[in-house]
Structures are given as structure tokens and as C-alpha cells.
């Protein structure tokens, strides 16, 4: 009945005549395709003999550089997404895989990004010796290592927390494994995954300089991109060029935020699991445009239903044939085989590592690295405390004022996405000019980029603080310090912990690029583990790079286990009312 009515009223058919929305949408699509194509063509171009690439400091070159850099980041994001699905799915589905994959992921996550780069760049270059593709892949891989892990954790978390009743429903309707994965588990994981993709994209920017202007020992290559542009600007001490780079990057971030992430977030809102209506429904003009443009709808509809059909296809695995069943080893035997294999692999890797490090490293090296680690640890702790003292009161003040919060929150999120290392040259310029002590004044750079996570999580916590509790506190005239201690701080604590975990992890990672910095030929070294790793990378001293990375992993993992996890558990338990 209904379809007929629609036709009679004339809604369905006349809509397919192209309208102004179609023109805009088509223009958008064509522009994106052309841009991506031209960027990609440059990537696979043959490598010019001289590896010191011709990076130009002219602002006119920047749009192309911004495109190349963004393209690399999107490629890395795609790779991260594929990795996420391939890694998190077995980790969540198989008990045996889980016991190996999840601790491994914990370690992978704690290894600083530069660590991967130094070990892999030669490999990638040797894969495609005559083409830009080698260095390009190395850079993409470096960005990938800054993006993939948190996405993988997010998908794994969602997969193991899929609501039981929905799993039972899908089982009772006899969904195949494939159908259940795409129709239940992936949709359920979608909001978290998209949020983490956005975080990853910001994380990737942070290492753009390091991954585009690759310099490991004697091997040096500069890929055309904003990162190399900034590296050259630092080398030539051009503050103006850095200003241009910041502008170009801001524009790039705004553009892909509008064209990619806003639409994704608005689209993924329907996957929110809460059954209540949202307070603020995320919107995106791009998504609205494509949804409302009649011709676009007509063109994309088959695509959409194709994807749906693929997700809903059964693709069930054939049943295990009966003759196979007795051949499948029993659970204890399979367990022994599996863990035996894992243990053997670990033992092999350890002996190889020892063989590799033994002739080069002494206990004195370990002590130097550990001392440097302690220095960096002290920096991270002090900076987190300082950032807390600054941003918690401000965040609460903002969060309790909904009007202000709605304006400040996007800015805080943008600042978190903004690669703070672009501001480093400015800071270094100041330190050099005023002859400040680098050991102290370089430290704030570590947290420059990640402090915003504390701010926007606190804002979120204060905004979500129950109104009746505030009113109760007011009616009992709880004020001053008591108000903070008994009312507000416990209320925002879980949010704060979430923000502080991200901020501290980010600070560790940032130490590599912020503890030792250049301004032209002036080199300022603040000491610490980050400076140690950076220094060894420059010297191409692989055993010591590995040592530095291992020490940092140990520090990061112990800090997570000993401080943040208990805090988090406490926050979960204590501040819940149900």
C-alpha cells in the first residue's frame, strides 16, 4: 500500500532528476578522485637519482605537500583498519590466540613509533629500489604504527563485550559466523572504532615529520610532504615557513574532518547501542548532501544494497565432515601444542636478541638507558600533575556551563588533533634566544599535544555530572575545597583517568621528538630516554636503539599496570551508584 501511495503523490520518481545538491555532490566526488589520483601517481614515480629530494620552501608548494601527506595518512589508516580486523577478530574469537595476541599488542603499543621506523625503513626501500614506492611504504608503515594499536584494542574490546542477548538472538535465527560478524559484531563495534580512527589520525600527524624526513644512520630521504617541509624549515631556521606549514596543516585537518570524519560520525550514530535518544545528534552537511541528492541516491543505492547483500550473505563454513572429528586433537593436547609452540618462538626470539645485543651492549648501557628512563618518567609524572592542576579546574568550569562547553569542546578536540611538534621550532627559538635551561624548558613540549585529552575528558565529565547532585550540594551549602573533594572530583574521576591515561601514553611517545630538538644547526638536548633513542637513531646504532625501545616499553607497560589500571578499576567501582 505504502509504496503505491508514494508513487501517486509523486515523491519517488521526480526526485531522481538531478538537483543542485547533485551538482555539488558530483563536484565533490570528482575533485576527490582527481586529487587522490594525482597524489598516488606521484607516489609510484621512479626515484630520481639524488635522494636529497627537492623540497621547496615556497608556500605555493604546500597544497601539493599537504595532499601527499594526507594521502599517506589515509593509506596508513586503511592499512590499520585491515590490520585491526585481521588481528582483533582472532584475538576475540579464539581463547588460545587471545593469550598470545593481547599481551603482544600491549607491547606493540608501548614501542615508540620511531622504533619501528629505524628497523623497517631499509627493508621497505630494498623492496622497491628504483621507485619512490619504497620510502613511501616505509613512511606509511611508520604512520601505521602510530595508528593501528588503539583501533585494534577498540575492536577487540567491542567484540568481547557484544551484548549476550543479541548474540543469542542471532544464534537463534541461525546466523552464520559471517552474518553474525557483519550484522551484529561490527555494527556494535563501529562507534568505538570510528572514534579511535579519529584519534589515530591525530596521532599520525604527530610523527609526520619523523616519518617523511627519514634519517636513520647514513640513510636519508625526504618524501615530499608537510613533514619534510617542516624539517627543511627547521634546518633553514625559517619561522615564516613553519607558519605556512601550520596553516596548511590546519586547512588539511579541517578539510578531511569535514569530508571524512564528520560524515562517518554522523552516519555511525545509528550504531550507538544505548536505547535512549541522543542528546545531541551529530550532523554532517556532507552526509546530508549525499543523502538528499536524488541522483546520488540513485547511483549509490545499488552500491549500498550490494554491501548489505554481502554482509547478509550466509557464507557459512561447511560442517566438519564426520571422519575429521576423531582426528581433531582433544583440548588439553591442543593446548599443550599451542603453548609449547608459543614458548619455543619466544625462546628463539630471545636467543636471537641476546646474540644480536651481547657483543655490543654492556650492563653499563642498560644502566644509562634506565637512568634516562627515570628522568623521562619524572618528567611525565610532573607534567601530568601540572596539566591536571591547570586543566581540571578549567575543564570543570567549562563543563558546568553547557553553552560554553559546546563552544570549547570542539576546540579542545581540534587542539588534541593538532600536531604540537609543529610548534616545537617556535619553542626552541625562544629557548635559544633567552638561553633557558633545556633540561627543564624542553619538558613542556612532551605534553603540549596530549594535555588536551585531560581537558576535553574533564569537560565531558563535568557536563555529564548529574544536576540533582549539584543542586543537593548547593542546598547543603557545600562550597570551596569541600565541594571539590566531596562533590566534583569524585564525579569527574573516571573521565579524568581516561584522559590522563591517553595523555601520559602520548607524552612517552612524544619524548622521542621533544627531548632532543634542532633549530638549524643548533641542537638542544634535554636528556632522557627519548633523547637517547633519537640520538642512537641518528647514529644508526641498532643495538642501542633496541635497548632504548625495550626500556621504554618496560616503563610504559609498568606504569599502565601499576598506576593506571588500578586507578581505572577504582574509578569504575567507586563512582558508580548502581
Amino acid at each position, binding site marked *: 500500500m505504502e509504496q503505491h501511495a508514494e508513487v501517486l503523490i509523486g515523491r519517488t520518481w521526480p526526485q531522481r532528476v538531478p538537483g543542485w545538491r547533485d551538482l555539488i555532490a558530483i563536484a565533490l566526488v570528482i575533485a576527490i578522485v582527481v586529487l587522490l589520483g594525482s597524489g598516488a601517481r606521484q607516489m609510484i614515480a621512479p626515484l630520481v637519482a639524488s635522494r636529497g629530494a627537492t623540497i621547496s620552501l615556497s608556500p605555493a608548494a604546500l597544497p601539493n605537500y599537504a595532499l601527499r601527506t594526507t594521502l599517506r595518512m589515509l593509506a596508513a589508516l586503511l592499512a590499520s583498519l585491515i590490520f585491526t580486523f585481521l588481528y582483533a577478530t582472532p584475538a576475540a574469537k579464539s581463547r588460545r590466540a587471545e593469550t598470545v595476541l593481547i599481551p603482544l599488542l600491549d607491547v606493540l603499543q608501548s614501542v615508540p613509533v620511531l622504533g619501528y621506523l629505524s628497523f623497517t625503513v631499509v627493508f621497505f626501500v630494498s623492496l622497491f629500489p628504483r621507485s619512490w614506492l619504497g620510502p613511501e611504504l616505509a613512511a606509511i608503515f611508520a604512520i601505521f604504527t602510530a595508528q593501528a594499536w588503539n583501533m585494534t584494542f577498540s575492536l577487540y574490546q567491542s567484540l568481547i563485550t557484544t551484548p549476550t542477548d543479541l548474540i*543469542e538472538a542471532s544464534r537463534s*535465527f*541461525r*546466523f552464520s559466523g559471517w552474518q553474525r560478524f557483519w*550484522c551484529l559484531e561490527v555494527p556494535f563495534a563501529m562507534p568505538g572504532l570510528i572514534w579511535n580512527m579519529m584519534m589515530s589520525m591525530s596521532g599520525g600527524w604527530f610523527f609526520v615529520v619523523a616519518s617523511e624526513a627519514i634519517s636513520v644512520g647514513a640513510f636519508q630521504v625526504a618524501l615530499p610532504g608537510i613533514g619534510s617541509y617542516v624539517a627543511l624549515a627547521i634546518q633553514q631556521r625559517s619561522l615564516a615557513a613553519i607558519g605556512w606549514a601550520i596553516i596548511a596543516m590546519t586547512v588539511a585537518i579541517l578539510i578531511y574532518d569535514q569530508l571524512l570524519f564528520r560524515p562517518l560520525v554522523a552516519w555511525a550514530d545509528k550504531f550507538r547501542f544505548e*536505547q535512549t535518544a541522543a542528546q545531541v545528534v551529530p550532523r554532517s552537511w556532507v552526509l546530508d548532501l549525499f543523502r538528499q541528492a536524488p541522483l546520488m541516491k540513485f547511483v549509490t543505492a545499488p552500491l549500498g544494497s550490494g554491501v548489505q547483500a554481502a554482509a547478509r550473505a550466509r557464507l557459512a563454513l561447511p560442517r566438519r565432515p564426520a571422519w575429521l572429528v576423531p582426528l581433531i586433537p582433544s583440548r588439553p593436547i591442543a593446548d599443550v601444542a599451542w603453548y609449547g609452540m608459543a614458548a619455543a618462538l619466544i625462546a628463539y626470539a630471545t636467543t636471537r636478541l641476546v646474540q644480536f645485543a651481547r657483543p655490543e651492549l654492556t650492563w653499563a648501557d642498560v644502566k644509562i638507558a634506565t637512568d634516562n628512563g627515570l628522568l623521562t618518567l619524572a618528567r611525565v609524572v610532573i607534567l601530568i600533575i601540572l596539566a591536571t592542576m591547570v586543566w581540571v579546574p578549567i575543564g570543570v568550569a567549562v563543563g558546568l556551563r553547557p553553552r560554553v562547553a559546546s563552544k570549547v569542546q570542539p576546540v579542545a578536540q581540534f587542539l588534541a588533533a593538532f600536531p604540537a611538534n609543529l610548534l616545537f621550532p617556535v619553542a626552541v627559538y625562544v629557548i635559544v634566544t633567552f638561553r633557558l635551561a633545556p633540561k627543564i624548558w624542553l619538558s613542556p613540549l612532551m605534553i603540549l599535544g596530549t594535555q588536551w585529552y585531560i581537558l576535553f575528558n574533564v569537560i565531558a565529565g563535568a557536563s555529564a555530572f548529574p544536576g540533582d547532585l549539584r543542586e543537593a550540594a548547593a542546598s547543603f551549602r557545600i562550597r570551596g575545597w569541600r565541594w571539590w573533594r566531596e562533590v566534583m572530583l569524585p564525579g569527574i574521576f573516571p573521565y579524568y583517568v581516561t584522559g590522563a591515561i591517553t595523555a601520559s601514553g602520548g607524552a612517552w611517545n612524544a619524548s622521542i621528538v621533544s627531548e632532543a630538538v634542532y633549530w638549524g644547526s643548533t641542537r638542544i638536548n634535554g636528556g632522557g630516554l627519548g633523547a637517547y633513542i633519537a640520538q642512537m637513531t641518528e647514529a644508526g646504532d641498532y643495538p642501542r636503539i633496541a635497548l632504548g625501545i625495550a626500556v621504554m616499553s618496560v616503563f610504559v607497560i609498568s606504569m599502565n599496570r601499576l598506576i593506571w589500571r588500578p586507578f581505572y578499576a577504582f574509578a569504575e567501582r567507586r563512582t558508580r551508584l548502581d
Partner: protein
Amino acid sequence: MPSQNAERGLIERRSRAAPSGDRVLEMREVHKGFAKPSGEPLPVLADINLAIAEGEILGLLGRSGSGKSTLLRIAGGLIKPSSGTVLYRGKPLLEPAAGIAVVFQSFALFPWLTVEENVEAGLDAIGLAKAEARRRTQSAIELIGLDGFQSAYPRELSGGMRQRVGFARAMVVEPVLLLMDEPFSALDVLTAESLRTDFMDLWIERQLPTKSVLIVTHNIDEAVMMCDRILVLSSNPGRIAAEIPVPLAHPRDRQDSEFRRIVDEIYSILTSRTTESLSAGNHARGPFAHPLPLVTVNRLMGFIDTLAQAPYNGQAELAEIAEAFSLDVGALFAIAEALHMLEFAELKESAIKITAAGRLLTQSDTEERKRLFREHLLRFVPLAAHIHHVLSEREDHRAPRERFELELEDHLNPGDAEKSLLAAIGWGRYAELFEYDDDARIFALIGSNSESAL
């Protein structure tokens, strides 16, 4: 069975034929146990033998912890029994079957799909042609009264409409057997009533493709309203305690004397089961064999105060008082059992009667109440007495929660162990018998222990 059918035939005047006797689903000697931390099995269901005949609605009634939801999931092929066989249309049921659909208490709708897509999702596994799937979806939507809501997302709907989607999704696969797991208990009373009536109308008019229904509920009225036969499950482990035929014609009337008689009969079965297992637990299987009902002191006091006053004056029919307080079986029996355990009231057949101590309790002031409650707690609740004893014995009068948890889990399943401990904490705190610090997860004695003389 044949004689029952004959009897039913006399009374019945509804259009649906009486159960023909063809068995849709059958369970033989089904047991289900979960492993205790120590490794030994903890029985949840034992000796389950049942058959669902074509044309009937079979009700499963029991208190929480009786394993009725587990039983329903076994019937749906979602859980495998530890031993025993399940036959669906004469063939062993090893996994969810095409002819069985489930309606969930929590609705279990996919929030990212519209009403129409949710209903159609039920057909995904069947692999119908698109047009056929559309047709069946549309007719299920019309049947269940969802027309006009096709493009709405579940979060836009009220609870009642959401459960209608749950029904339509189950109906679209044209199930032979429909399993309903407390389908109305997440809804308010009026909504539940309207949904139930609509469903029963469709059932009576034979507009549903379904041949048989198995419904789990803890609402006695609902069971008597809908079912042709009711199985009452006892707890720990769940066994079939009684089978009660409901030979009443549809539509049924709550005020009908026969209806009331069946309701009362069920109450007295549940009562005798409760008191039996209480005394059996105390004597045969040590102090922890019977879980404590998780009821707050406030509820106990509110209940007993009302019971002491007019119109009850110390004695009430359970059915009556359940309706007056709008309590479901689970909540009602938790309160009644707690009062019975503490000997402030006595459960007998389908009634509850206040004891002398209970009367004294209602007449006392706060301090005196606490003293009396403490006395009864120490004397009649072994777990509370045990905690108090351990704390008194210890040098520092403190003990970690884990100690008692481990002890309890040797006798009870983890859920019951947790609930028992929570109940003991609540009662012990009120009685000022001991205190409990949830941050440190430690029990401690309050002040001096001069009152442990009992």
C-alpha cells in the same frame, strides 16, 4: 494425560483444537550443571522430563535461580544440556533449529536496524528471495500491529512497541515452536496487559503460524491467564516440582473462582517448596546450602508492618498481597522467605502469617527492632552467624570478603553466592552485627562483642 484431554474437551469452547498429542518438543532426563571453582559440577537443572504438545501453551514458572531461563535456552538449542536428550519433532536438537524462534525479555533488537530491517533479519539465515522476504516481513509487521512504524529505529519506540518488533521478528520465520523468555516482564503493567491480550487474541483465532508456545514467567497471574499447562520449577537445582493443567476456556477472567483456585494452588506449591527446601537446607546440607534471598531490610519492615495492620491483621493470602503490592513471584517469595527464615512470619500453604516475634517487631521502636533483628539473625541465619563467629574468633576482628565468598561458592553457584553475601551484608549492617568496607572488601566487628552471648 488422555483423561486430562478429555476433561479439557468438555470445558473448552474455544475455536482452537485441544492439544492433539503430537509432540513438538521433548526433553528426556535433561541435566545441566556448571563447573564450580573447585571443578566439581554445580547442578542447575536436574531430571527434567517434559513434552510440549502441538496446540498448547506450556508455562514454566519458578523463582529466580530455578534455572527456567536455562531450560528455555536448552529448548531453543542455544545451550547444550550436560546430559539427557532434547528432541524437536522427534529428532535430536543439537543447535538452533529452523522451526524454533525466541522472544527475549530484553527484546534483543539490533539498534542500528529499522523496525522493518529488524524483522527481516529473522529471515537472513533462510535465504529467501528478496520479494518473498519483503512480503513475509510486511505481513508479520501488519499482524503484530506495527504498520506505520517500518522505518523507525528501536530507540524511537516505547518498550511495548519494541517488544512488538521482537514478536514480529520471531513470527516472520513462521516458527513451529515459539519460546518466550519473560516477554512482558520488562514492560509496565498496562503495556504488558495490552500486548498479552493482543497475542492471545491472535493465538485463539489461530492467526499465528505457530503450533506451540513455551513461556517462562515469574508472574503467576500471567501463567494462568495464558497457559494450557504450567510446570512449577523448584530451585537448587531446578526440578519440575508440579504440573498444573489449566482447563479454562479463553478469554479467561481473573475474577473467576476456578481461576483464583488455580492461582492459590500454585502459590501453595511454591510455598511448600520454599519451606521444605529451607528446612532441608538447614538440616541436611550444612549452613550454606540454602541461598539467602536478596531483600533489603526496608522491604522486610514495610511488608511486615503492612501485614500486621488491617485489613490483613497478621495473616494474608499470598495472591492477595502480591496484587496489593504489585509484586511478582520472585520479589514476593524473596520477602516471604526471608521473613519465614527469620521466624518473623510463617509461610503455610497459600498464606503468610505473622509470628509472635514478628508482632513484637512491628510494635517496637528502632533500637528495639534492631536488637530483635540481631537476635533472630544470629539464631536463624547461619551465614550471618558464621560471619559473626569468624570475626569474633579472630584476633583483630576482621576478615576479608574473599574468605566467605570461597566458602559460599563451594555450595552455591557464583550468582547465588554473591546474592547471599550481599543480603547478609545488608542485614548485618542494619542489625549492627558487623560492618563491611567495600573499598578494602573487609568485614569487621562493631565495637565490643558483648552481645554474641547467643
